[in-house]
Structure formats: structure tokens, C-alpha cells
């Protein structure tokens, strides 16, 4: 035993335990647990708050059982590893137990407002002091041991359990989306089977668990087989597979609002607007490497220009049709980009970031100011922006009846613009222009000496980024029917930047995924709204530490080139060998 718990190992376990303890206490103190303690995951069995708390010692236990760099740990047996997990879980549990003891004897609410009696009751499981502490510590230890046991168990079981748990959690999380839709479509029987009091029913959760586990077990060998088959296929077939994948995705995107109903379509519209913003900012930051923290300015300019030109209630009052106004808006947007780009041409890195941050705020303050009120409406903004898109579509195509309203309609033009922007950005990135931008990002002076006119290419990046941002702003104005300066604060810039960083700088699929994850998910977990910034922060810190290149790094082109080069490779290799032989 003395050998088992050496000083170094003890320190490592203590560190993991301490981190878990801090996370658990933090979740309680900021109110996340309280916010989620009434959201059922499985009704009558477990709530989301409990899931969050339990997940921490589980993950800590898993980590504690992982082989460390210390080679002696590799020889550890399963029992010892589980014991480590138990230890770590106990530390976290004990910390929470002590916290509960303190909180229930001393009133901490003066300082920590989130520690409410209902929270304490939830944490103590309704037990009295004493038994409650024991129970909390025991549960912590149990979860830690379970986490470790998960690691120790064979991969097949591990994957099955993980997938089953995720399936249950996922099905319960989409309840707010799925249930109203099911009821709307008259599938009340399914909805009643699945859900009860906003959580899964016990039977449904068992079904989900089994399906999740089953899918993992069946998929495991199949997945490998599938990948190997695809990889073994000739280039031609692989291209065809890719074509089909894209086609299926396009169809899925097209019918999504029909299946999902209005609420999800509304979320999708928001995701689309941010996707467009991110595609534009990606040109500036991802391709050209110009850190622009005031990107919201272009979003605002686009929205306000659209409002001024199309709303009959605006100070201009000309009420142009949207599609007549749009080219004017985009042209002016490009000019705005040049206007903002020109003074910052000589700035690099941090300096550029600070100046653009200032520009973003200046834009917001101007739109809000009383001085410009007669034209821009001040805090009241501009109302009465007409939408060029029909409010509802009611079509009878043969046997299928298509009905769409509000966001379900707006969804299509927004995603059409997104697709267009993505295609344009993709073409630019793989052209002379994109390479010049990348070169500038890598080393500005060498790019200049290599023949890239850095002044022109910086301005071009700003102008194109601005145009895309303004387009998103224009659609935003149309979607709301009104614009207010409050919508254009610095948080928009930060969010868009976060989308790009999360997805992967300079990677178009990354940007798309980033927008879905960072904008879409929080909308689905509405309790999160209050904690959105907190979660953004945590996600960004985690990403920078674990995967700084983003979810989908920009390596697509490389793979493409590999495919083309495959045929030549052997030949070239022989050539090299010959060349080397002849020189040596």
C-alpha cells in the first residue's frame, strides 16, 4: 500500500480531487445547480442539476484512473484504479458536504446570494445534517469509482455506456423542441410516451438507454468497416460519396424548417445571421490575420442603412423595395470597410484590435446619440421595416401540403445568402487573393517583399468583410422589422469572434459548425441564457487549452491535394531517390 500511494501519485490524485471540488462548489455558488435543479431529465428520478453535480466526480474519477506519464502506473490493476477514482470522488464529495454543513449553520446569503434554502434542501437530499454529509460524500465517492470503472472496463462497454447516457440526456434536452412539435402534428401518443413534466418518462429513458447502447455496440465494428471501405475506394468513388453527402445535407437543410416548426426555425434564423457574420469576419481575421474587435459596426451599419432606405417611417422616408436597397447597402458597406480600414493600415496585432474595438463602440454610441436622433431615431431606433418575404406560404403541391410562416420563410433567403457567402469565401481562400491574405497573416513584411501589396489586400479584406457583415445586418433588420442601437453592443463582436475561434480560424466548415454550436445550443437550453457568457468563457478557455486549432481546422484543401497527388507520388519518389544517388 505504501508503494501504491507514493508521494507523487498522492499529489496527482489530490490535485484532481481539488479541481473537482472547486468545480462542484463553483457550480453551486454561481447558481447553475439551482437553475437546473427543477429541470427534469428523467421525471421523478433525476434532474439536470443533479446530472451536472454527478458528472463532475464521474469525470474526475475517470481522469484519476487514466495512466499518467509515470510509467509505473501502467502496471496498475483495475482494482487500484477504481480505488483512485473512489478517492478523488470522495474528495469532491467531502468538499461539498463541508460546504453544505457550513451553509446550513451560518447564513452565507449576504455574500453568496445563490445559496438559497431550496438549493440546500436539494443538496442535502432532504436529510438532516450528519446523515446528509455522509450521503453526499458517499455519492461523490461512488461516482468517482464509477468513472474509474468506466475507464477500466473494455472499450466496447465504455462506448456503449457513454453513448447510452448521451442518448438519454439528448432526448430529454430536446423536449422543449420535440414535444410541442409532436403535439402540433398530432402525435400525442408518442409525446406522452416520451415525456412527462418536461422530462423523459422512466420507460422512455430505459428505451433511450437501450437504443443508445445498442447503437454504439452495432456501430462500433460497422463504423470501422465503413471508414475502411471509403478509404480503400478509388478517388472517383470517394468524390461521388462526397457529392452524395453534400446532396443529402442540402436536402436536410431545405426541409429542416418544415420538420422543426416555428421555434427551431427561429433559432436557425439566428444561427444563419451569425453564420453570415462569422463568414465575413473569417475573411478579416482568419484569412488576412487582422484582429478586428469592432465587427459589430458593420452589422449595425447594414441594419441601419436598410432601415433608412426601406422603412417609410425612417427620416429618409423613401421606402425603397428591399432588393433595390440591398445593392446600395452592400456598396456603402464596402466603402465603410475602406473608411475604417484606411486609418488602421499601419497597425498590427494588439494595436489593431484595440483601435477596432474603439470603432465598434463609436458606431454604437453614434446610433444611440441624441445628436443624430432626428435621422437615426436615437434609443428608439427605426421602426416599420417591411419584409420583402411573404409572411406565410401556403402551397398545395400534388399530395404534399407545404405551409410555412414567419421564420420558416425567412430561413430560406438567409441560408441562401450563407451558402453564397461560403462558396465565395471558399473560392477566394483557394485563389491568388486568399494566398496573399494568408501570407500577410503569416509575415507581413515578407509578404510585401514577395510582391503582395499589403495595403491593397488589407483594404480588400476589410471591404469584403464589411460587405458580408452588412448583409447580415440587413437581414437582421428585415427579420425584426425594426432596429435599435441596443442590439449592436460589443458582445456581438465577441460572439462572432468566439464562433470563429471555436470552429477553427480560416475554416469554412469550422465557422458553420461554430455558429451552430455556439448560437444554436444556448437557444435550445433556455435556462442557460443567464449563464451564456459564463459558458462562452469556459468553452473558449477549454478550446484554447485542449484544441487551439478549432473544431474543424483548416486542412480541407490539403486532403484535396493529397488525392490529386496520390497518382504522381510513386513516380516522384523514385525520381528523388535517383536524384539523391546522383548528387551523393
Amino acid at each position: 500500500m505504501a508503494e501504491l500511494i507514493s508521494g507523487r501519485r498522492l499529489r496527482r490524485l489530490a490535485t484532481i480531487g481539488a479541481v473537482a471540488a472547486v468545480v462542484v462548489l463553483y457550480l453551486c455558488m454561481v447558481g447553475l445547480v439551482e437553475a437546473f435543479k427543477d429541470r427534469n431529465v428523467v421525471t421523478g428520478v433525476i434532474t439536470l442539476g443533479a446530472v451536472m453535480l454527478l458528472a463532475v466526480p464521474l469525470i474526475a474519477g475517470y481522469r484519476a484512473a487514466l495512466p499518467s506519464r509515470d510509467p509505473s502506473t501502467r502496471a496498475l490493476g483495475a482494482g487500484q484504479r477504481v480505488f483512485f477514482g473512489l478517492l478523488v470522488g470522495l474528495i469532491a464529495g467531502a468538499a461539498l458536504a463541508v460546504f453544505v454543513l457550513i451553509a446550513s449553520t451560518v447564513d452565507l446569503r449576504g455574500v453568496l446570494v445563490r445559496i438559497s434554502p431550496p438549493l440546500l434542501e436539494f443538496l442535502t437530499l432532504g436529510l438532516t445534517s450528519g446523515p446528509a454529509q455522509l450521503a453526499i460524500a458517499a455519492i461523490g465517492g461512488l461516482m468517482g469509482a464509477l468513472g474509474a470503472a468506466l475507464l477500466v472496463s473494455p472499450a466496447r462497454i465504455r462506448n456503449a455506456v457513454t453513448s447510452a447516457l448521451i442518448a438519454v440526456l439528448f432526448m430529454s434536452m430536446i423536449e422543449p423542441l420535440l414535444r410541442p412539435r409532436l403535439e402540433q402534428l398530432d402525435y400525442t401518443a408518442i409525446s406522452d410516451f416520451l415525456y412527462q413534466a418536461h422530462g423523459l418518462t422512466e420507460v422512455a429513458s430505459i428505451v433511450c438507454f437501450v437504443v443508445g447502447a445498442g447503437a454504439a455496440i452495432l456501430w462500433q465494428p460497422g463504423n470501422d468497416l465503413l471508414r475502411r471501405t471509403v478509404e480503400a475506394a478509388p478517388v472517383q468513388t470517394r468524390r461521388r460519396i462526397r457529392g452524395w453527402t453534400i446532396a443529402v445535407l442540402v436536402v436536410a437543410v431545405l426541409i429542416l424548417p418544415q420538420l422543426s416548426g416555428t421555434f427551431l426555425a427561429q433559432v436557425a434564423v439566428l444561427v444563419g445571421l451569425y453564420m453570415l457574420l462569422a463568414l465575413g469576419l473569417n475573411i478579416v481575421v482568419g484569412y488576412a490575420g487582422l484582429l478586428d474587435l469592432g465587427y459589430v459596426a458593420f452589422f449595425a451599419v447594414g441594419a441601419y442603412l436598410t432601415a433608412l432606405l426601406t422603412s417609410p417611417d425612417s427620416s429618409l422616408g423613401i421606402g425603397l423595395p428591399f432588393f433595390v436597397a440591398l445593392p446600395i447597402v452592400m456598396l456603402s458597406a464596402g466603402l465603410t470597410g475602406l473608411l475604417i480600414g484606411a486609418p488602421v493600415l499601419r497597425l498590427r496585432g494588439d494595436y489593431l484590435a484595440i483601435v477596432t474595438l474603439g470603432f465598434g463602440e463609436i458606431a454604437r454610441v453614434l446610433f444611440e446619440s441624441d445628436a443624430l436622433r432626428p435621422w437615426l431615431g436615437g434609443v428608439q431606433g427605426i421602426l416599420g421595416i417591411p419584409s420583402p418575404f411573404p409572411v406565410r406560404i401556403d402551397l398545395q403541391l400534388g399530395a404534399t401540403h407545404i405551409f410555412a410562416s414567419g421564420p420558416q420563410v425567412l430561413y430560406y433567403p438567409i441560408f441562401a445568402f450563407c451558402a453564397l457567402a461560403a462558396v465565395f469565401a471558399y473560392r477566394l481562400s483557394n485563389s491568388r487573393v486568399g494566398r496573399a491574405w494568408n501570407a500577410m497573416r503569416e509575415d507581413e513584411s515578407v509578404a510585401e517583399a514577395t510582391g503582395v501589396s499589403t495595403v491593397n489586400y488589407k483594404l480588400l479584406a476589410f471591404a469584403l468583410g464589411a460587405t458580408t457583415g452588412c448583409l447580415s445586418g440587413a437581414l437582421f433588420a428585415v427579420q425584426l422589422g425594426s432596429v435599435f442601437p441596443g442590439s449592436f453592443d460589443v458582445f456581438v463582436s465577441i460572439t462572432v469572434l468566439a464562433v470563429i475561434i471555436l470552429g477553427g480560424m480560416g475554416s469554412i466548415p469550422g465557422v458553420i459548425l461554430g455558429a451552430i454550436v455556439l448560437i444554436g445550443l444556448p437557444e435550445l437550453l433556455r435556462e442557460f441564457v443567464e449563464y451564456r457568457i459564463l459558458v462562452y468563457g469556459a468553452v473558449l478557455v477549454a478550446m484554447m487549452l485542449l484544441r487551439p486549432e478549432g473544431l474543424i481546422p483548416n486542412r480541407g484543401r490539403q486532403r484535396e491535394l493529397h488525392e490529386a497527388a496520390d497518382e504522381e507520388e510513386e513516380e516522384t519518389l523514385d525520381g528523388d531517390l535517383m536524384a539523391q544517388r546522383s548528387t551523393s
Partner: protein
Amino acid sequence: MSLLNTPAGPAPVTDVILSVHHLTKRFEGLVANREIDFEIPRHAIVSMIGPNGAGKTTFFNQLTGIIEPTSGTIEFDGTSVIGMAPHEVAELGIARTYQNIRLFANMTVLANVMVGRHVRMKAQWYQAVLGLPHVAREEAAVQQRSLELLDLVGLPRRYADDLAKNLPYGHQRRLELARALASDPKLLLLDEPTAGMNPGETRQMTDLIARLRRELELTILLIEHDMKVVMGVSERITVLDYGERIAEGTPEEIRTNPRVIEAYLGKQATA
């Protein structure tokens, strides 16, 4: 200078591609280059040597427009380079490599070379956005040419899709050379092309430099510390010391020039 003052006769085979007169660069109080006169005949390989801090890199930076001279003239192929932005100089036909390799680290090897071709390409951003056929044709042609350049400098094609920062050192030097060559320069400036190389690699690089001049009809100016390289490859050598030109001549003349020996080895060596 004696080489260039050929007496009138049949049209001079070796006309001058670069001529520099009275070039002076002051940084505050420090004179980095003082009244330098310098000429390179077309298709020659000329070296510039001198102890550290002699002003060689400053001289390079003025040729390429990165810093502006305090006074003096630089004429390249009949055009004054003074006041031009570096990218304009690159377009005129001067390309360079760097003493401490400066590649576009997070771009692929192939993309690095293709950036080098930038000034000779025509595709505008709106043409690229529209995906016009001539853009794709140009792109394919440049890609092909870039791969050939990799062959020329001896960088195996299998590295084409690797990030430049992942290349081994010797290959990074070769890549930098390929990038410089991609713009079809008339004058190639090499700043210590064999720095940090072992004797084998150094010899390969020397052979390559000689071959480039032959095959691409280049004019090459190199800064180099390795005397073996300098003596082996150059036709004329200019020696700088404390920002001044102290000698100019054939390798044989330089080798025996007492001022040069003094600059390199100190006073006692000549005594």
C-alpha cells in the same frame, strides 16, 4: 569596376543590370552604408562579404525597398528603385531570401511557392469569386510550375502539402529559394544561403546556385560568410567594412588584398 570598363568595341556582352551610386544610409548617428558604388553585370554571380555589422543586410534592404536610402541612387535595369514599395520592386524582378529563414510557416509548401508567383498572376478577387474559367486555368498552371520549381531546387514533391514549418531545416532553405524563383526574377538576392548547413548541404547549395544562373539566366547577388562558397561560386566579390566598400575584384584579388585580410583577421595578420 575594371571589368565593366571594357573598351568600346562590339556590343558589350555583359551589360549592367544593377548600378548603385553613392548609396548612403544613416540610422540616427550610425552610418550603416557610406557612399557605396556597386554594379552587377547581367548574368553574373557577385558576392558581398564583410564582417558582422558591415552593412550588408542594410544594403540588401535598400535594394528591395524595405528601407529608403538617405542619399544616392539605385538603378535596376534602367529604372530607379528609390521610393518604390517592396512589392513594386518585387514586380520589377528582384527577389530575395533571408538570413534567418522567413517562410509563411502555417501555409503549405506548395502555397508558399505559389505566393511567390503572386506578382505574375492576374486573377482579381471578383474573378476568383465568380470562379471564371481563366482563373482556374491560371491556378492550375501556377500549381504545375510551382511543383516544377520544387523539383528544380531539389525539394521532393511529397512535401508539397506539408506545412512549411514542419519541413527539415535544409528543405526550408530550398523552399525559400523556390518561393523567390517563382516570380521569375531577373536578379536574385541570397542572404547567407548556406548558413547553418553542413558541408554536404553547403556543396549541394553551391552547385544549385551555379545551376540556377545557368538554367534560368539569372543574375545573383549573395551575401555569405562561408569563404569556400564565396570563392567557389562568384565571379566578382565586393567587401564591406564599417559600412564602406573597402575592396572589389575577382576572388583571387580579394584573397590577397591586405585590407580585406586586415578587416577579417585584425591588423597583426598583415604585419
